[in-house]
C-alpha cells in the first residue's frame, strides 16, 4: 500500500475508515431509535439468548477452566520465590474477576458470536431474505438486530460470572494438587479483599462488550453487498473489529472506574 493512499481523499484508507465509522455510528443511532418501538420480538430475543448462552456454554466453561488452572500454575512459582504463595487465591480472584475473566470471555464470545451473527445476517442479505422481511412489513431491523443486541447485552455478564466461577474452581484444583490447600482456606482467602462493587462493575462491563459484538457484527452483516466471498469477509471483519473495540472499551471503562469520586460539596 502506498503511503499516499492513507492520506485524506476520496477512496483513501483514511476516508474509507471514517466513512465506515460514520455508518456504524448511524447504525448504532438507528438501534437506539428503534429499540423502544414495537414490534417487540420477545420470542426471537429468547431464542437468541438461548443461541448466545446455552450454545456458548461449553466453550466458555473450557475457557474458564483453562484460565484458572494456567494462571495458578504460572503464578505459583513467582509467588513462592517471594514467600507469598499464601496470596495465590486472592491474586487469582482479583485477576480473574476484575480483568481476565470478563475480557477473555468476551473475546472468546466475539470469535464465536461475531462470526456467527455476521455470516447469518450477511447471507440473509445476499439471498434477499432481509428484503423479503422488509416487503412483508416484518421490520427486519427489529427481528434481526435488536433481538441479537439485547440477547448479547444480557447474556455476556451471565456467561462471565460462570467463566469466573469455573476459573476459580480450576485454580482451586490446581492448588489442591500442588499444595493440598483446603477449599475453605482457598475461597476465604480468595474473596477476602473483593468488594461487591468490584464484582458488579467488572462483570457488568461485559454488557458493553456484548453490545459491541452484536452491533458491530450485525452492522457488517446487514450491509454486505455481493456474494459468498463478501459474507465470509464480513464474518471475519466482525471478529476483528469486535475484538479490537472490546480491548479499547476495556481501557476506557477501567480508566473511568479508577477515577476518584468527586469531592462532596455538603458542609457538615
Amino acid at each position, binding site marked *: 500500500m502506498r503511503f499516499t493512499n492513507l492520506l485524506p481523499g476520496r477512496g483513501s484508507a483514511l476516508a474509507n475508515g471514517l466513512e465506515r465509522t460514520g455508518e456504524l455510528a448511524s447504525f448504532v443511532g438507528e438501534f437506539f431509535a428503534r429499540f423502544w418501538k414495537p414490534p417487540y420480538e420477545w420470542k426471537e430475543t429468547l431464542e437468541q439468548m438461548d443461541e448466545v448462552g446455552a450454545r456458548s456454554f461449553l466453550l466458555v466453561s473450557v475457557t474458564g477452566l483453562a484460565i484458572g488452572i494456567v494462571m495458578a500454575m504460572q503464578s505459583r512459582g513467582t509467588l513462592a520465590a517471594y514467600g507469598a504463595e499464601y496470596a495465590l487465591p486472592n491474586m487469582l480472584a482479583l485477576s480473574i474477576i476484575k480483568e481476565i475473566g470478563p475480557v477473555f470471555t468476551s473475546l472468546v464470545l466475539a470469535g464465536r458470536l461475531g462470526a456467527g451473527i455476521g455470516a447469518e445476517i450477511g447471507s440473509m442479505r445476499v*439471498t*434477499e*431474505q432481509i428484503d423479503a422481511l422488509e*416487503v412483508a*412489513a416484518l421490520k427486519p431491523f427489529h427481528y434481526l438486530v435488536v433481538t441479537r443486541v439485547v440477547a448479547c447485552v444480557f447474556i455476556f455478564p451471565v456467561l462471565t460470572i460462570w467463566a469466573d466461577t469455573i476459573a476459580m474452581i480450576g485454580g482451586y484444583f490446581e492448588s489442591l494438587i500442588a499444595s493440598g490447600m483446603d477449599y475453605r482456606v482457598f475461597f476465604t482467602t480468595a474473596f477476602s479483599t473483593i468488594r461487591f462493587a468490584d464484582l458488579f462493575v467488572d462483570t457488568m462491563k461485559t454488557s458493553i462488550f456484548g453490545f459491541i459484538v452484536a452491533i458491530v457484527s450485525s452492522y457488517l452483516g446487514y450491509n454486505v453487498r455481493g456474494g459468498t466471498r463478501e459474507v465470509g469477509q464480513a464474518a471475519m471483519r466482525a471478529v476483528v473489529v469486535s475484538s479490537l473495540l472490546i480491548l479499547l472499551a476495556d481501557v476506557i471503562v477501567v480508566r473511568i472506574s479508577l477515577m476518584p469520586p468527586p469531592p462532596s460539596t455538603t458542609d457538615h
Partner: protein
Amino acid sequence: MAERAATGGAQRPRGEQPGEDHAGNGELAPNRVAEVGSGPPPEDTIIELRDLHKSFGDLNVLNGASLAVEKGTSAVVMGGSGAGKSVLLKHIVKLLTPDHGEPWVKGKRVDEMTGDELDDLRLSIGYLFQGGALFDSMSVEENMNFFLNRHTDLSEGERTDRIEETLSWVNLADTAPKFPAELSGGQQKRIGLARAIILQPEILLYDEPTTGLDPVSVRTVSELIVRLRDERGISSVAITHDLLCADIIADRAHFIYEGEIIESGSLEALERSNHPVLRNFFGS
C-alpha cells in the same frame, strides 16, 4: 410463434382484459404515463412509475424509466442484464426510493409513505424474489406461518388450513415439513410464490420468476402466474429475460435499456420492433 396460441393466448380471456394491447393487434404503443407533478393516475391504473431516476455512486441505473400497469393485468419488463429491471421493481415497494420521479401505487406516492401506511401497502403486495428468498432456517410450513402469525388473527387451525390450501394450489402440498435446502430450484420458486400469495395480495411482483429453471418448470411457474391473474384478478409486474415465460404471462410488455423503457406494447410488437437493441435481444 405458433406456440403462443397454445400457451398464454389460449389461457387468457382475450378481449376481456383491460389494457391488453393499447395499440391493438400487436402494435407498439407508447406508455400512457402522466407527467411528474400531475397528481394521482386514473383509478384503473394500479401502478404508475413516472420518470424514475436512480444512481448508486457514479452508476446511473435508472434514467427516466416510466411505465403504467392497469388493474387486473400482467405487465412484463424485459431487458438485458444490468438494464435496471430489478431496481425498477424495488421502487414499487419502497425497497429503494428514486433520486427523481414518482412511483405511484394504488393512487398514492410510495416514496412518500412511512409507518403504518407503508406497511399496509406492502401487505397488499406479494413479492417473488429471484432466488425465492425463503427463510432457510425455517421449514416450508414455518416460512408461511411466519407471515400469517404476524399479520392475521387466524386461529392455529385456520392458519394450517390456509397453508395447506396454498401449498396445494402450487401442487406442493407434501413439502410442508421440508426445509428450503431440500427443495429443487423450481420447487423453491413455487414455494416462494405460495408464500407471496399467502396474505392474499392485490398485486404481485415477480423478479425473474423462471431464471435457472428447466423449460417444464418455466411453463409450470408461468401458468401459475396466469392463473393468479385470471382466477384471483391479481395485477402483476414481472421482470424477466425468459421469452417463454414472457410469452405465457404478458398482457403488455416493456423493454428497458440503460435505465429507460424504450419500447412498450404487445410482446409480438416488441419482437417485430426495428429498434437495434430489441432486434439484438430477440435475435431477429
